[in-house]
């Protein structure tokens, strides 16, 4: 039986691309540091054990690419506050375990709060239609899921559906990382699925401004190897271009209808990204036209009067921030795999299947340990 997508997992082609990547890094004649900005990239790197095959002189850092991880703790606390007021909450499954400053939604649910998992934004509208009580959709994720939230708000949603938006706009965070890395990051591997919405053209001003190449790449192992090879080749040639290595899905202009819907519903505003920084224009907030569906408006009193949150132990020592900005590895964290595990996460990176710590935990420390240590 031929697995789907097998053509993008061909071992021979993989070896050829690996050799090309090695040649490119060798031509640099020095260590090369690049960053991917997507949890799904890290997941594929770990799942296929690619990290152990990268050339020794190539450092592939992990950027702020996990939508769950960058949801700020106060945003989660706001959702928990509403849940504790008895408001029914709907959200994506990954959000349940993410610790706020004191609790996770999972903890609140164990104490009686009504929190249900949905798998698509449309389910939020369906569930709200079945009841008269207010229903809050805690909407998280990047432009990919923000478009889905926009679509339900543009599609005559029931009056009792309220959106608590924690959506984020990735290009804004890339801007922050590029400006604060002091030129350490020499090139960027951009997320293919987000680019299906934004288009690869969006990265052209970024590449020009920071004088760094950007390669848009997909999520199969061959996509990642070819993306990295192209990226390093452009780094070596000092060509600050945008290259679309995911042309089977991504166009220059992206999905114009989706983008139009996104910005009819949302406006960008500055906000904290958990562990990263204050990101100007990094949050997607509902426009005033949609105030009647904005949970922050409808429940302004409840949110303002929520009890102050006492931060629990461990959180201060959590290295998620350094890990998400490429300054530390999960294995550098004293809690990794010990106090912090997928079923009892201390930091946000251990929660989502796109969080770096969880990926490293599930795949045996980044896919490297098994290969390096396994003589079997």
């Amino acid at each position, binding site marked *: 039986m031929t697995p789907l997508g097998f053509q993008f*997992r061909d071992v021979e082609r993989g070896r050829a691309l690996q050799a090309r990547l090695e040649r490119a890094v060798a031509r640099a004649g020095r260590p090369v540091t690049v960053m991917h900005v997507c949890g799904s990239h890290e997941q594929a790197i770990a799942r*296929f054990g690619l990290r152990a095959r990268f050339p020794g002189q190539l450092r592939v850092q992990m950027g702020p690419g996990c939508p769950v991880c960058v949801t700020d703790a106060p945003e989660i606390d706001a959702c928990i506050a509403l849940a504790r007021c008895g408001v029914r909450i709907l959200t994506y499954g990954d959000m349940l375990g993410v610790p706020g400053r004191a609790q996770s939604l999972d903890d609140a649910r164990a104490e009686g709060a009504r929190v249900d998992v949905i798998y698509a934004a449309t389910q939020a509208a369906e569930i709200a239609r079945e009841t008269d009580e207010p229903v809050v959709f805690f909407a998280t994720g990047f432009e990919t*899921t923000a478009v889905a939230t926009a679509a339900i708000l543009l599609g005559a949603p029931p009056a009792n559906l309220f959106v608590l938006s924690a959506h984020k706009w990735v290009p804004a965070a890339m801007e922050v990382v590029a400006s604060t890395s002091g030129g350490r990051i020499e090139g960027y591997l951009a997320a293919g699925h987000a680019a299906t919405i934004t288009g690869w053209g969006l990265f052209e001003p970024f590449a020009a401004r920071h004088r760094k190449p950007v390669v848009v790449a997909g999520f199969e192992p061959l996509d990642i190897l070819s993306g990295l090879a192209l990226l390093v080749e452009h780094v070596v040639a000092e060509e600050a271009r945008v290259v679309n290595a995911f042309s089977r899905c991504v166009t220059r202009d992206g999905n114009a209808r989706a983008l139009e819907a996104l910005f009819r519903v949302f406006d960008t505003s500055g906000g904290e990204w958990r562990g990263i920084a204050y990101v100007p224009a990094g949050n997607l907030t509902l426009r005033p036209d949609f105030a009647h569906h904005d949970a922050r408006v409808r429940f302004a009193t409840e949110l303002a009067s929520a009890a102050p949150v006492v931060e629990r132990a461990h959180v201060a020592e959590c290295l998620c921030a350094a890990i998400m900005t490429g300054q530390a590895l999960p294995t550098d964290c004293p809690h990794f795999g010990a106090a912090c595990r997928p079923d009892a996460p201390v930091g946000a990176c251990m929660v989502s*299947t796109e969080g770096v710590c969880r990926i490293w935990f599930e795949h045996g420390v980044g896919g490297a340990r098994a290969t390096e240590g396994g003589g079997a």
Partner: protein
Amino acid sequence: MTDDRVKLAHGAGGPAMRALIRGVLLEGETHAETLAMDDGAAVPFGDRWLVFSSDAHVVQPIFFPGGDIGRLSVSGVVNDLAMMGACDILGLASNVVLEEGFSLDSLRTIQSSVRATCTEAGTRILTGDTKVMRRGEVDGIVLSTAGVGITDRVVRNAGLRPGDAIVVTGTVGDHGLAVLSARNNLGLRGDLRSDVAPLNGLVRAALAVASDAVHAMKDPTRGGVTGALVEMAEKAGVTVVLEEASIPVSHAARAAAEVLGIDPLLVANEGKALLAVARDRVEVVLDALHAHPLGHQAACIGRVVENTGSGAVLLETGFGTRRLLERDSDPLPRIC
């Protein structure tokens, strides 16, 4: 974090569940048979072994593609017994907990499914108990089924030996993905069906040709193939190496898994068994499995390579690399 309350993760088959069982339910327990935490318990019975096991079932939705809670409840306990070598099932006990207002039509359908599955497994419900709870006190129906079987030789899930081949009796991931898809109306098209089935006939066929060569068995239910094999490897203190390319996954399950970002090795199966078989007898066992209707896609998916004392499962990816498998709680679909 609130550590003083039960959370859903405590029932998801992952580390939290093990912590709950070891730390609360088995606290102070000293009996070796209990502490073995096998699929069932075996007690000497004359010169044979009496094996018994029980399984409580809650599932949403109660009817799903490929089965229902009735078929699940019988298969669950029959498979637990079969995994210990007890393929002749003396009888089952069925406890039914119902919510006030539950549809009698649904109950009849479930009951006829229970009976049909019993017939398939060559056993019967011999006794049982029924309770009705007030509306909201239980979600529809809970079926708790216990069973007793008898065997000459008990197979332990800890019995893997270096040199053994690891065999799976068919495609993996079908049940978990089918139920997840049905539960959440994911609208995935294609032939995604649960594999729920009683396996005692299939296991009997394998044991009949190579009883002493089957060193260990376990059904990869919650926690999936990864969860089951990591547990087996840890208990036996051995390293298992799996070949990803040889693990059978149906097209429908693979497509659903890719779309949802879920590893098919981590989701539940309800009609599959993992066997550790002496390498020189693996062809005989595979032939016997292939000849059975439930085993025609059986495959050798890996091998036990060494006695490390600690236990680990490595996966040789289809991409020519190798990674360590970790067990995990119920996987959730990714956000994007």
